């Protein structure tokens, strides 16, 4: 029987994988996917803690997060497409013209 700690550890592992993905991968789409992983790691925590405390608040928040994540993915992918049309690349290091 998995305890709360198991869920939290899994969540932390998922979050770290996502973070590492954001830092290490050089493809914008992978970056977006990594962010999705981080978000879902957080969702897992909410659900687990909600279950542990015997409340549905965690699950409600997860629905909100999923909605926002869907919108974010839509906008993010649209921007990625627009960027690709301009620069023919998806490497985030190519897009640094918004600087001093």
């Amino acid at each position, binding site marked *: 029987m998995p305890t709360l700690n198991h869920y939290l550890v899994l969540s932390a592992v998922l979050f770290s994988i996502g973070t590492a993905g954001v830092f290490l991968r050089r493809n914008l789409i992978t970056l977006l996917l990594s962010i999705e992983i981080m978000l879902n790691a957080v969702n897992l925590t909410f659900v687990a803690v909600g279950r542990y405390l015997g409340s549905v608040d965690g699950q409600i928040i997860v629905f909100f997060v999923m909605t926002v994540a869907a919108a974010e993915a839509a906008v993010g992918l649209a921007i990625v497409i627009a960027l690709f049309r301009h620069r023919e690349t998806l490497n985030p290091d190519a*897009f640094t013209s918004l600087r001093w």
Partner: protein
Amino acid sequence: MLLLIPLLPFLGFVVNAGVGRRLSKPVSGGLACAAMVGAFLVATAATWPILFGDGAPVDQVVYQWMASGDLEIAFALRLDALATVMVLVVTGVGSLIHIYSVGYMHEETGSEYARYFSYLNLFAAFMLVLVLGANFPVLFVGWEGVGLCSYLLIGFWFQKPSAADAGKKAFVVNRIGDFGFLLGMLLIFATFGTLDIQEVASHVADRAPEATFGVLTLITLLLFLGATGKSAQIPLYVWLPDAMEGPTPVSALIHAATMVTAGVYMIGRNAVLFSHAPMTLETVAVVGAVTALMAGTIGLVQNDIKRVLAYSTVSQLGYMFLAMGAGAYAAGIFHLYTHAFFKALLFLGSGAVIHALAGEQDIRRMGGLRRELPITYWTFIAGTLAIAGVPLFSGFFSKDEILYKTWTAGFPVLWVVGAATALLTAVYMFRLVFYTFHGQPAGSGTPVSIDQGSRGPTPASGGHVPSHAAPAAGAGHLHDAPPAMAIPLIVLAIGSVVAGYVGVPHVLGGENRIERFLEPSFEAHERVTAVGEPLAAEPAETAAEAGEAAHGEASTELTLMAVSIGAAFGGIALAWFFFLKRRDVTENVARSYSGVHRLLLNKYYVDELYDATIVQPIKQTSTVALWKGVDAGGIDGLVNGAGAVVRGGGSILRRLQSGSVRVYAASLFLGVVLVLGYYLWP
């Protein structure tokens, strides 16, 4: 009733300043004249009981002006014997000058014309407030107001830089004097707790005169500083000659007849105060005498007709202060009164000459005008004889009274100075007459020879250049004064002759009525009689002495009178010899004493001295220390420094904005880790 006297000219000012530009010239000029003449009529009616009745002063409190704790100041007017003389002079001579201005200023455009008359009326209103004010603040309002109008009218042709500068100079120099006056006023309030002139006088009367330097001496010296500014005495006389940049009627009204005598009036008004400060009186007498002599010597060599008259005004004002300093207040006011007539006349006469000559003011380019300008000539002669102190003319009586009183007050040295100045007065005034009205008509006459080192001929530059008149003196048609200008000249000429007969001295069989008339104004009233003792003793004593001394004094007076008559005629003779008969001799004298001549021509270099000792140091301090040091260095430095710090910090911090999303994400993550770590660390 009293309020109406200053109020009428003030209404004239309001109308002319408000809608004057839409009125036609006859209407706006007529309105201003009507306001002045109306004020004169009201003043006559108001002063009638004082002149011919019991002489009781009239008081009027218009309203409570300020009330704060111990300080209660009413807008109070007071008409006594002294104010009577002043009010009649201001409104009477003022009316004549207003009428004269209608003719003199007719070249100006409609709006300028209205502006001129609105200033002139405003001046008259303030001057009347000054002479009617019953306490120091009201007097001060008038005092400052006439200074303002003087500034406005000197700089009336403000497009001309010299006129604008002269106005500024007058204002700034007066400001120095006014500062002294203000301090004197504050000290009076601190000492006596009141600012009512009468109350101050009765407080002072309770004290003994100050033998040494004390608070009364300080008060009177500060007030006298104000008087030197307003009345153009050493050390603050420098503005008056420059003030001649204004229109000539203004010079006549403000800088000869009325405003510049305000200082003399103020001392007369505070006669009790000054009498209790013998040290101040001595200072006043010495300053007056020295100013009289110094201005007289400068006037001897000036070539601008108005400047000669300006220095003569300074000199005559010196006489008045000499009289005040000698304690002969009535004599000073008497001279003020006669001087108002003949000096206004002389200025208006010079205005008529300038008008006829299309703005020419250099007497070396005039000459032989007595045929073309008969009215101007004869009235000018009347004024000149009066100022020179020729017997039977008004100036003789008043000047002689001053010299006599100076002698009896125990200032023989100052008497000598005064007599010498009388001689000088006759010389320079007749020099003016001979240069202007006698000799050959200009152009062909005396070449401009040795005087070129002085200030170049400044007249006619942009100011008053009547378009219809001939472009150069002597050429073409010259016209005598039109009626609006001639009538005031004639009236003032009559005044210059007869005005003195109110003060015929006893020794000539007169009664010196003006002195007896003015006497009550120079004494403290009310409480003094209650104190009684010391005052009661004095008259008995003096009466006994007077009986004995009367005979001896009469002979002294006659001797002194003979000297001053001799001075007048001697001066005329000298002027006739040097400036009419043998001008070549004059030039030789001037050449052989060229150092002295240049010194006089440059007015003892006083302007240069002031410039070097006061103006330049202030300018340098302001430029180097205040402007470049404090302002540019300190204040701007703070502001610019703040900007530089922000900019410098920004130029370093902006490197953080690399544009790389991953760096942002990394710093975000690092931040979260740090914050969480801080809170969660056990």
